[in-house]
């Protein structure tokens, strides 16, 4: 039955069934008829003009012609004639204005185009044409129409808040709904086009099948309940987005009401309208060591060894890098696999300085990261629609991620690289989407990073070739070590018990956050008075007050199964508040474990699908 649903396409109405054709023809006949009559009247005028009335006041015929001409018509009549031609000219120039509005304003007048959303015709058009339906990868409807008991036909979103960020609402930034089905009055045909059988553009009504899996998305929603965070899950072989969710979300039904939308927009504490998966920056922490590992492999430096006892203190930086426990997690002379397994800040900090800014920059660009020479400049924080493999620019723009970036290049100093090595410093602007892409590169059998896609009928496209086949396999083996005796050892226990071998990377990162004033819901601000060295007041400005304690966010990157990964994901949990810590292995990894188990029950890892139903039976408790 799902196959039938997938195969069925909305048919184009045949020209014979187009009832607008008859009125269009009749209109044309009417206008032609009037034109004919006007022509006849013109001819009648012409006849009168040519056949000058012999009784019009004329001078006697025996005068010379030029004098006759001057005396022929009285001056009053001359004035009248001049006025007549002036009038005809004025009337035709009025018509020129009409021509402008009808043919040119739509394209050339920018203000006109900007304000066309005020045109009631656009509203009529979008209300009277039904949008296409959106299905998930298994053919279950995610956005469709339902006839209510009061007779109204409403757009239904069975998963409402779960897909709110992806679908978007009528206000604010467009999501997929407006990108796929945006209706404009200019698309409606005029009489000439109706006669030729054209109707409103068919693309408005086409059905779409997304790559999202409704069951996985639902599981993600349950796992993230109660916390701010995001999960992005890909199929690393094809780039398909299996699930993408940001918590807190909002109900699409709420946004119909202007006042509610304003309230949602102004909620600066929860920020439900923000799509954290695509558009919020987090400090990646240890997960960024993945990028360092890729760079090392790509440049043949994966054999680097470092003695981590005593930490890492490069010259001139005034800082000794230690692991999270204050000393070393993996001590002694270790290689990259052990360092990755135990998440050694010391090793990777050293590795970062050894690799150098240029090598890191080259690898970062292959992964879709922005690598810049300075930390303040244009282009940073811009949207990155071109990473998507999508059917139109509008779709790409609607779900474009904010570009994750770091400072890397010729001018990277050793102290900067020292921090970037373990995901701090100038490598602190990463979106969960980007981190999921990063792990997809190794999860891909060929070492390719596939362009993400959300429409299931697109052919898979490669973004870049990051690693060779063997490198990817080796990296996957190292990532597997994280779950076997590494930092995600205990969290992955249920996955291992189910016979699935997976790989991943934990991350815990700290971020300075503003204090939210409980009364206004806005970040607290304070006025800072600027004084010059002598103590004289030279100015003042307001700045946001940051909390004393840092917020600790938890990451877990994961892919499964080891031999041929079918899913690669990034899980991010924002810490609940300054002073309370979330850890990658303790808080984020168990969520990934549950998702892998759910995928198994849905049949992703081969074997029978034992629970294809919408509601998952097991409820997972919070694992801290």
């Amino acid at each position, binding site marked *: 039955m799902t196959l039938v649903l997938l195969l*069925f396409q909305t*048919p184009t*109405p045949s020209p014979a069934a187009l*009832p*607008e054709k*008859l*009125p*269009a023809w*009749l*209109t044309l006949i*009417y*206008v032609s*008829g*009037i034109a*004919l009559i*006007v022509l006849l*009247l*013109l001819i*009648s*005028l012409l*006849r009168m*003009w040519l056949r000058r*009335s*012999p*009784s019009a*006041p004329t001078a006697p015929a025996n005068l010379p012609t030029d004098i006759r001409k001057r005396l022929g018509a009285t001056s*009053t009549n*001359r*004035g*009248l004639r001049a*006025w*007549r031609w002036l009038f005809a000219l004025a*009337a035709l120039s*009025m*018509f020129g*204005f*009409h021509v402008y*509005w*009808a*043919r040119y304003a*739509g394209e050339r007048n920018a*203000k006109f185009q900007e*304000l066309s959303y*005020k045109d*009631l*015709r656009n509203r*009529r058009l979008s209300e*009277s*044409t*039904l949008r296409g339906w959106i299905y998930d990868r298994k053919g279950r409807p995610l956005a469709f129409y*339902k*006839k209510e008991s009061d007779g109204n*036909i409403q757009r239904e979103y069975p998963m409402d808040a779960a897909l709110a960020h992806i679908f978007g609402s009528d206000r604010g930034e467009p999501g997929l709904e407006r990108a796929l089905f945006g209706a404009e*009055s200019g698309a*409606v045909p*005029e*009489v*000439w086009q109706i006669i030729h059988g054209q109707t409103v553009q068919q693309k408005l*009504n086409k059905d779409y099948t997304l790559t999202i899996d409704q069951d996985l998305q639902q599981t993600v929603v349950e796992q993230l309940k109660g916390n701010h965070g995001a999960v992005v899950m890909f199929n690393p072989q094809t780039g398909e987005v299996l699930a993408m969710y940001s918590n807190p979300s909002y109900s699409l039904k709420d946004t119909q009401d*202007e006042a509610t939308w304003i309230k949602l927009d102004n909620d600066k504490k929860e920020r439900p309208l923000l799509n954290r998966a695509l558009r919020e920056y987090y400090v990646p922490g240890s997960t960024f060591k993945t990028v360092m590992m890729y760079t090392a492999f790509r440049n043949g430096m994966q054999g680097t060894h470092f003695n981590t006892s005593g930490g890492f203190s490069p010259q001139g930086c005034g800082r000794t890098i230690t692991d999270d426990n204050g000393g070393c997690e993996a001590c002694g002379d270790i290689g990259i696999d052990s360092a990755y397994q135990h998440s050694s800040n010391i090793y990777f900090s050293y590795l970062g300085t050894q690799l150098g800014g240029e090598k890191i920059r080259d690898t970062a660009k292959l992964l879709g990261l922005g690598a810049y020479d300075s930390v303040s400049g244009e282009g940073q924080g811009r949207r990155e629609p071109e990473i998507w493999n999508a059917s139109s620019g509008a779709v790409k723009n609607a779900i474009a991620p904010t570009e994750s970036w770091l400072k890397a290049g010729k001018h990277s100093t050793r102290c900067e690289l020292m921090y970037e090595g373990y995901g701090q410093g100038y490598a602190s602007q990463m979106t969960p989407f980007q981190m999921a892409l990063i792990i997809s590169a190794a999860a891909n059998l060929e070492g390719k990073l596939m362009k993400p896609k959300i429409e299931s009928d697109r052919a898979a496209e490669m973004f870049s070739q990051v690693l060779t086949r063997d490198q990817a396999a080796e990296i996957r083996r190292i990532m597997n070590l994280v779950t076997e005796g590494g930092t995600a050892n205990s969290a992955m226990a249920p996955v291992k018990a189910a016979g699935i071998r997976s790989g991943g990377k934990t991350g815990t990162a700290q971020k300075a956050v503003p204090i939210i004033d409980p009364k206004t819901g806005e970040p607290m601000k304070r006025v800072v008075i600027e004084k010059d060295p002598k103590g004289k007041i030279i100015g003042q400005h307001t700045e946001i007050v940051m909390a004393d304690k840092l917020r600790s966010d938890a990451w877990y990157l994961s892919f499964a199964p080891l031999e041929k990964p079918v899913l690669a994901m990034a899980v991010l949990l924002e810490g609940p508040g300054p002073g309370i810590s979330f850890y990658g292995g303790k808080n984020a990894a168990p969520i990934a474990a549950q998702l892998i188990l759910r995928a198994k029950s849905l049949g992703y890892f081969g074997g029978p699908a034992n629970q294809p139903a919408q509601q998952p039976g097991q409820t997972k408790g919070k694992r801290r």
Partner: protein
Amino acid sequence: MRNRLSSHLFVLLALVGVEIVGYMAIRRSSLIRGYETSLIGAIRDLMIYLPLIVMALWLSIGRKFKGNWTLYTTAIVLFSIGLLAQYRLYSDPEYNAKSKAVARQEKTDTLRMRYINETYDATKRQMMGLPAMPPPKEQEAPVKESSYTVGNALTSSYTWIPILSLLGFALAFSFCANDRFLSWTQRNSFIIVLLTLVPLAVAIVYSSAGKALGNTTPWEPAKIPFLLGFAGLLTARYKDLARTYWGIPRARDIIPLVVMAIIPFIPFFALKDFGQMLIFSGAYATLYLVAVRRWPQLLLFVGSVMLVISILVIGALPRDIQEKVPLLPTLARPVQHALPSRIQQRFHLWLDGFDPPSPEEAWWKKDYDEALSKDPRMKELADQSEAMKKSVNTDIWFDKLAFQPAQAIFGIASGKTTGRGLGLGFPEVIPIADSDYVYAALAEELGLAGGLMVILAVIIFVIAGIRTSIEARDMFTKLCAAGLTAFIGVQALVNIGGILRALPMTGITLPFVSHGGFSLITSFAMLGMLMAFSHRNAKDAKAMARVKREPESDLDLEAVQ
């Protein structure tokens, strides 16, 4: 095509045929949208052609009309286009509905159900909660029936006003074809003008915002006596006025004329009918210049007109544009204070229609505050930030003052070249689309082609009217005919120009096309007068021809120099 009754009757019948095609188109389109247009209304409209044809027959057979038939037929062409537009708009349940939202919803639902029945398969329909198979054609939900009964048709103003207009036409023709009436008018022009002021004074007391008696301007027929008065005075004085000293005529001659010219302006200013003032200025200026044909005066006149216009425009410009030119604000401020707020509004809409004015502008502030006080939620939004205030301001601007002209422009733009098709566009969203903004409704559904037809018809009418004036043998008739033509032509241009943003919008209607209120009666009365003059010209021409053949006859004709 000859200037004979038979040819023009043939054209009239062809027009009826074409109208029937148009009505059929509207009927079919409305069925697509789920409502039925009134058959009774259509029959009533088409039956109006009967008295029109009867009138033509009366003119020809009863009065032995020898003049220019083109005037009549062109006016009827414009009238027919207006009839069609009115039928289209008034059959639309949304246009005259008390609750527009409900009507709109019904229309939308019908279109959606039609789409669903045509394209959705059984699975989709089931998921929607509809029965799996679409109902067969016969059982489809019945379209909303028209509630227009014969009783409605008989008592409706749209039946009686055309009939009254034709009566006015016949009356005007009869009076103006009579030489004694014309010479009496010419002699007593001043008294006539004064007498006209009396009902106007009453109108001033009872009107508000330029309209009275519903949404009409019942003082429109007053234009005719004013014109007759002015023409009469000018006829008596034009030779004296031609005697100028350094381009300016003697005070003795010019002052009575100026007084006569100013008189109509006062009541129209008090009635806030600025459009009529504009037309009067245009017509009077034309008459004066045509009669007194002295080059220095022409230049002086044109110069002073330009000065007045530029002062008005400068005074009415929005403040931010004013600031760009040095010294301009100081010049403009006194003008701006003197200008009534309505004019400032109109100028802003004309020059800067797509930009809302700042909420601080005096003439906008009142409306803005009023709108905010009605909707506390918007007020809350506006108070939040500057950016919010701006978007709230834009919203209110487009929903209140700029609504009508903005929707009209959108409609014209969507009409493109061949229009959307009769009944297939959305002219019903434009308020008062059937009288003031009828050109926008036509442009939307008939496109550039339709607009061109209207403009051509107006040009033809003006050419025919001017011809009547040219062929007139005495000055009074000449000036009257020219004045009447100028009224109709300038009114049409000002109306169309206002809609197209070539000129500021005024509250006047398109002559003959707009069926609203007294506009039609006045237009037909003017038509009657013009045809009477044309008839006189033809009679004089015949007499002249006889004179030429019989040079001894002592017919005394007052020839023009």
